[in-house]
């Protein structure tokens, strides 16, 4: 049953490209929308992993997968709506929809497999779809960004594959359980440690953590608007961060060197990402550095190792997907109305685009961790987990970086939305329904999760226990 999450998008791509002329173009949007919305609601139902009559896939869905599948559905729907509005040319829009479906199949695959090598295959599917998506308009900046991303991603792939080869030597199979058993028996061998280190470094590059983040700001800012939403909202998270969480908690033995490595890289990303975001004048580039910083929070929560820390990390992953997507939707609205991403040229847009202004304020406050929005709870959980486990310095760093986050985001708000309306922007208006709808839904989710979280916290206790393992 759950293999349909991978097979249906792939089949849809094939169906959409059959030579039936204009009919396919018309149904493309509705087909994509149906698939994404179905995915959002399917994860809320209990699913039966049974009956696989013809195929024998090795797939599983547990609570962590459900969270990420939910995020995938939401972010892809937002990207779909924004793409409908922003991409003007019909052919390009059709290509965009097909690539979205392929990326969906790839990411669902990453989330559901039980085998390290299959995870690599689906990682590559998502990566290739991303390269093509970034170069959708074939302009020069985007091609440069795509090539940089390609080279770094290939290096990361090579690191991960060499680690898989070494683990194959040790365990004789590439499934999660087999590798886990093998690592437990030969834990302190230097070969195994090197293999684990190589794999984690490869995932750091894919996830865009410092100091391996070289491709990320260029890719996020030069890509077309709906593609930036996709990349920032879910691709980096699934490909890098989810894989890291899954591998470290389920496959590798979670021993001290790994914890220290994760916490160090996480803290580095938080601080350097926040500091770099301070000096940016390009809207999307600032959001890119802010993403690096927030992902650092997730990694530092993961590195802490306690169930509370891991729960905080997964919760922050969900929150970050929501509010970063909302910020990029706003950036898309601003870019499509004013035609530029340079914040120094803009001012006072809130007068003409009130909805965008309000939703971006909500997203900014949630990112900085202001109560009672959702970001506050996840950051609180991570900082509490760090403090309780005794890593006081890291907790202090996390809190200090929150202040810097608030600073650069307030400067963004002041520059773009508040103040007097610039003279050249008299003609702009709020973008239409296609852009406003995802922004409203995402803002609603941020507020709802933030306010309801204390009451719902006891519902999630079983999630915490499962991801604490």
């Amino acid at each position, binding site marked *: 049953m759950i293999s349909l999450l991978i097979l249906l998008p792939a089949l849809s791509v094939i169906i959409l490209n059959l030579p039936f002329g204009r009919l396919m173009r018309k149904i493309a949007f509705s087909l994509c929308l149906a698939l994404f919305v179905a995915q959002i609601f399917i994860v809320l139902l209990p699913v039966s992993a049974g009956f696989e009559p013809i195929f024998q896939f090795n797939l599983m869905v547990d609570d962590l997968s459900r969270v990420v599948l939910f995020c995938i559905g939401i972010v892809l729907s937002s990207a779909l709506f924004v793409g409908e509005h922003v991409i003007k040319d019909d052919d390009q829009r059709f290509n965009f929809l097909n690539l979205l479906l392929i990326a969906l199949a790839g990411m669902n695959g990453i989330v559901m497999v039980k085998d390290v090598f299959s995870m690599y*295959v689906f990682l590559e599917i998502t990566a290739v779809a991303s390269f093509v998506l970034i170069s959708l308009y074939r302009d*020069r900046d985007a*091609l440069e960004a795509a*090539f940089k991303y*390609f*080279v770094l991603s290939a290096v990361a792939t*090579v690191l991960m594959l060499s680690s898989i080869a070494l683990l*194959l030597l040790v365990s004789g199979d590439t499934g999660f359980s087999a590798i886990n058993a093998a690592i437990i028996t030969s834990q302190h061998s230097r070969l195994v440690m090197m293999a684990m280190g190589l794999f984690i470094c490869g995932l750091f590059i894919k996830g865009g953590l410092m100091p391996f983040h070289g491709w990320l700001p260029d890719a996020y800012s030069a890509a077309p608007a709906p593609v930036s939403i996709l990349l920032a909202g879910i691709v980096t998270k699934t490909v890098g961060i989810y894989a890291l969480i899954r591998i470290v908690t389920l496959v590798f033995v979670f021993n001290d060197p790994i914890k220290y490595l994760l916490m160090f890289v996480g803290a580095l990303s938080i601080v350097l990402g926040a500091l770099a975001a301070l000096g940016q004048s390009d809207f999307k580039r600032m959001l890119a550095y802010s993403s690096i910083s927030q992902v650092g929070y997730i990694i530092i929560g993961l590195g802490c190792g306690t169930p509370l820390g891991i729960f905080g990390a997964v919760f922050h992953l969900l929150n970050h997907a929501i509010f970063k997507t909302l910020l990029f939707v706003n950036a898309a609205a601003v870019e499509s109305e004013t035609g530029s991403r340079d914040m120094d040229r803009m001012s006072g847009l809130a007068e003409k685009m009130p909805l965008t202004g309000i939703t971006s304020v909500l997203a900014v406050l949630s990112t900085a961790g202001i109560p009672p929005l959702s970001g506050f709870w996840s950051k609180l959980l991570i900082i509490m987990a760090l403090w309780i486990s005794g890593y006081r310095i890291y907790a202090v760093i996390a809190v200090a970086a929150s202040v810097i986050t608030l600073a650069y985001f307030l400067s963004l708000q002041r520059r773009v939305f508040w103040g007097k309306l610039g003279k050249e922007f008299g003609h702009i208006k709020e973008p239409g329904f296609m852009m406003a709808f995802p922004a409203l839904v995402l803002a609603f989710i941020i507020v709802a999760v933030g306010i309801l979280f204390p009451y719902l916290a006891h519902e999630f206790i079983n999630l915490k226990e499962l991801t604490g393992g």
Partner: protein
Amino acid sequence: MHLLWIFFVYAVILFVIGFYCILATLNLVRALIGIEVLMKAVTLLIIIAGYASGRTSLSQALVITLIVVETVLIAVAMGIVLSVYKHTKSLDTKSLTDLKG
């Protein structure tokens, strides 16, 4: 075991060659060649691991899938390089430093 160590050494040598190529080149197509050399190194590593643990069927299945994925990757990368060439008429990476890293 000694024979396998020799194979392993050569795999590491291929790694070094590939990494050096990517770092030291100014030409886009040569960066692709460097990535190809790295992929050969990884293929060799997987074959060694399969032979040493006795699971040649698994390692062959992995290598076959790996070759397919790598081919698609290189094909798409060549598409990107061709598009860059159409824009700038040169393959020099120095001409690709518009975006400030």
